[in-house]
């Protein structure tokens, strides 16, 4: 059975071994990846059943606890597209992040910055028929990490997408414009320039909600599909 496959990685994807991000050294394969044609396994995925798996939408991360979290309230919106610019409708985006002080609620995060009892930092949105999404949160802080002396992660939001198929899975991070830490961050810079900048959101006064929240634009581009089926042997 011949199926229409998805494009492979483009030049903007980082290598698994990115030594400046020290943990990749022992956590990247040394053997080359084996090329395979896409089969039904790779071009299918659990589309449209997100609520059965991950639960209902949670698009406002500022209203998950009793009170309002501290920090700068922001709205992030955009579209999920394929490489041809076509919208990817009804696809899930999972979101997680630290609080305004740069602290995750995760028990392994032992950095001495305050926890915010009113901020958990996990959300979920599903794109509409036009591939559009929007969520409300607070701007996350920067935080130190142990990669090298005086290492600090730039402020970022973790984003996870499944897209229509096993082949379109993407986990990425959203960064903020004018953050000086991006330039010296080994994780962001595992992605070569200019492609790294694809992960930097744009401040948008038109998306900003008067008297409420600053607006940022961020589109997410998943792998596109080939034009013709793979010709099997």
């Amino acid at each position, binding site marked *: *059975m*011949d199926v229409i496959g998805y494009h492979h*990685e483009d030049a*903007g*994807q*980082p*290598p*698994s071994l990115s030594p400046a991000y020290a*943990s*990749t050294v*022992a*956590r*990247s*394969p*040394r*053997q080359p*990846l*084996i090329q*395979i*044609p896409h*089969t*039904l*396994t*790779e071009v*299918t995925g*659990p*589309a449209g*059943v997100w609520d059965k*798996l991950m*639960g209902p939408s949670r698009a406002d991360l500022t209203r*998950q606890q009793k009170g309002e979290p501290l920090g700068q309230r922001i709205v992030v919106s955009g579209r999920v597209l394929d*490489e041809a610019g076509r919208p990817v409708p009804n696809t899930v985006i999972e979101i*997680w992040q*630290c609080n305004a002080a740069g602290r*995750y*609620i995760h*028990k*392994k995060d032992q950095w001495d910055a305050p926890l915010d009892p009113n901020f*958990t*930092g*996990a959300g979920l949105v599903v794109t509409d028929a036009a591939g559009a999404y929007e969520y409300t949160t607070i701007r996350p802080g920067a935080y130190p990490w142990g990669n090298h002396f005086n290492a600090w992660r730039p402020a970022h939001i*973790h984003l*996870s997408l499944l897209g229509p*198929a*096993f082949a379109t899975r*993407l986990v*990425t*991070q959203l960064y903020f414009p004018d953050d000086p830490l991006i330039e010296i961050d080994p*994780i962001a810079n595992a992605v070569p320039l*200019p492609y790294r900048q*694809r*992960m930097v*959101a*744009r401040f948008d006064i038109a998306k900003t909600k008067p008297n409420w929240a600053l607006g940022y*634009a961020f589109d997410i*581009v*998943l*792998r596109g599909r080939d034009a013709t089926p793979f*010709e*099997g042997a």
Partner: protein
Amino acid sequence: MSDNQSPDLFGQTPSQTVGPFFHYGLPWKGGADLVGQSDMGARPDLIPEGHYVLNLASPKGPVAGEVIEISGRVLDGDGQPIPDALLEIWQANAAGRYASLDDAREEVPLDPNFIGFGRASTSAEGEYRFRTIKPGRTPGPGNSWQAPHIAIGVLGRGLIKRLCTRLYFEDGDGNRDDPILALVPESRRNTLIAQKIDGGYRFDIVIQGEQETVFFDV
């Protein structure tokens, strides 16, 4: 400076690691139990009281097929277990049909109680565990047939992008004729074969080094 909205930069959004703190964002309770109602797959021990906002798996009816448990360890290049990895699986149902709009073969039945997608966090000891059913055979390229297999994605701290592999079964029907296994050098095929043990199958994932698992360019 160019950014996410620059037309001249339009293209695939780059992959980034899930980092070490994904446990309250990704693995839901029961994510690793594709047939039952347990909370397998989550790590509530890493999330403070009052902050567990993730889903509980919705109730499922009986699932057709042979129920199996798949377990193993995820190991790094120093042979050390990886306690902050996340595995995702995707598989066909017992009849060999994917619960996906892109598998339109109406002659092969869907199972209303089986989706075929799961997630498991590794434990502090680097162990993972899924409960699922043994998938049926599915079509491969041309007129070929794939042996029963489960597609696996490996995510985690230190993994800047997902690694993709496949699990085949030691006693699987058709391994010898599988068109994907045929692309793997014979000396490395054993890294893709789960070994039968009491109550299920054992499948370690070795990210690097001797017995390094075969990863695919998907």
